[in-house]
């Protein structure tokens, strides 16, 4: 590698700080051996470098770190808060989805009537329960998806009468006739309740009314 005198002069500062490539360094050293002017320039640069004022350290280092630390921690808290917002938004969407789904199920349910113990009509058509029919209150856990709820109600061969309430309670109407759960016929209301309570995600099950 050969360098012109101008190139050598340009590279001198980095020769001094020891960061030239081996080729550049070698070429420059050869040039220095042959040029008195270049040697003088190098001497001047050395003097300059050695007389450069001392650099001050950042006086605000400790305070600066504490400020940054606070920002880092508040940023993490903010992220965590944003994650919660996301979870809440997802939960809200799920609730809406469940309610919309339940509404659709109610719409598609076979028309019929439900009668409460007091004799009031709760059915969509406002008439009384038929023989063998009952209305159950079922409370589902928040982890239950709409698909899970729908599947369970289908297994009961039931239909939604009302709900879900603010507490997540759904009223389901079903018939004991021809009801088969886990492969065996069920005729007793207590057996239905017992089966429901054994299902994952069901937090509460009780008879609203029966006939």
């Amino acid at each position, binding site marked *: 590698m050969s360098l012109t005198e101008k190139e050598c002069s340009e590279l001198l*500062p980095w020769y001094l700080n020891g*960061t030239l490539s081996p080729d550049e360094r070698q070429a420059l050293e050869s040039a220095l051996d042959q040029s008195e002017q270049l040697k003088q320039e190098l001497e001047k640069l050395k003097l300059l470098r050695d007389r450069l004022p001392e650099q001050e350290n950042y006086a605000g*280092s400790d305070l600066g770190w504490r400020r940054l630390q606070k920002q880092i921690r508040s940023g993490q808290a903010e992220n965590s808060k944003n994650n919660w917002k996301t979870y809440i938004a997802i939960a809200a969407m799920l609730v809406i989805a469940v309610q919309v789904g339940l509404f659709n199920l109610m719409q598609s349910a076979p028309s019929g009537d439900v009668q409460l113990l007091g004799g009031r009509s709760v059915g969509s058509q406002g008439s009384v329960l038929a023989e063998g029919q009952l209305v159950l209150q079922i409370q589902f856990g928040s982890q239950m998806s709409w698909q899970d709820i729908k599947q369970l109600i289908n297994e009961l061969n039931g239909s939604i009468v009302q709900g879900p309430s603010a507490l997540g309670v759904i009223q389901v109407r079903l018939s004991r006739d021809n009801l088969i759960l886990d492969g065996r016929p069920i005729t007793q209301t207590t057996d239905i309740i017992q089966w429901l309570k054994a299902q994952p995600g069901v937090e509460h099950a009780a008879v609203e009314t029966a006939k």
Partner: protein
Amino acid sequence: MELTDKELIQAIAGQQEKAMEQFYHRFSSIVYRFALRTLNTPMDASEIVNEVMMEVWKKAHTYAGQSSVKTWLLSITHHKSVDLVRKNVRHDHDDDDALNEIADPNCPISDFQEAASNQKYVGQCMDELSDKHRQVVELTFYEELSYPEISDILVVPAGTVKTRMMHAKKSLLACLSRLLSREDF
């Protein structure tokens, strides 16, 4: 145990606050000094230290390891400082302006030694340099960076780095000659 610069960056990428603290104390002065030379006000330079370190905390995972950590850090510092300068609408000299207008003092080495031996003179002449020229001198002699590294940091061609250094050298020599001649009177 003292971690290397690159190990620290890896730990910071894993959001380890202790590593960030160590990194901050290792590099805040370098960032501060470099920013101060561009911005000239300690308050702005402190602000840049904070911004740069926050960027390191958030983007340590983007460090590719191709350059040294110091080069990467000073590159961020440069960008942020320049942004702030632009906001403050400050103007600096062009790279090659008046390069040839500065007389090369070409003074004898003995006279130069006399002038340069006075540290106050050297400091005064450094202060007279434009920001761009002083930056290159400082990155070369204080931070001991190569010209390709300086080129990366300042996002200018290597040739521009060399030109700025030549300009800085001439200016410093001219300044020292002037101060020396004043002494003679």
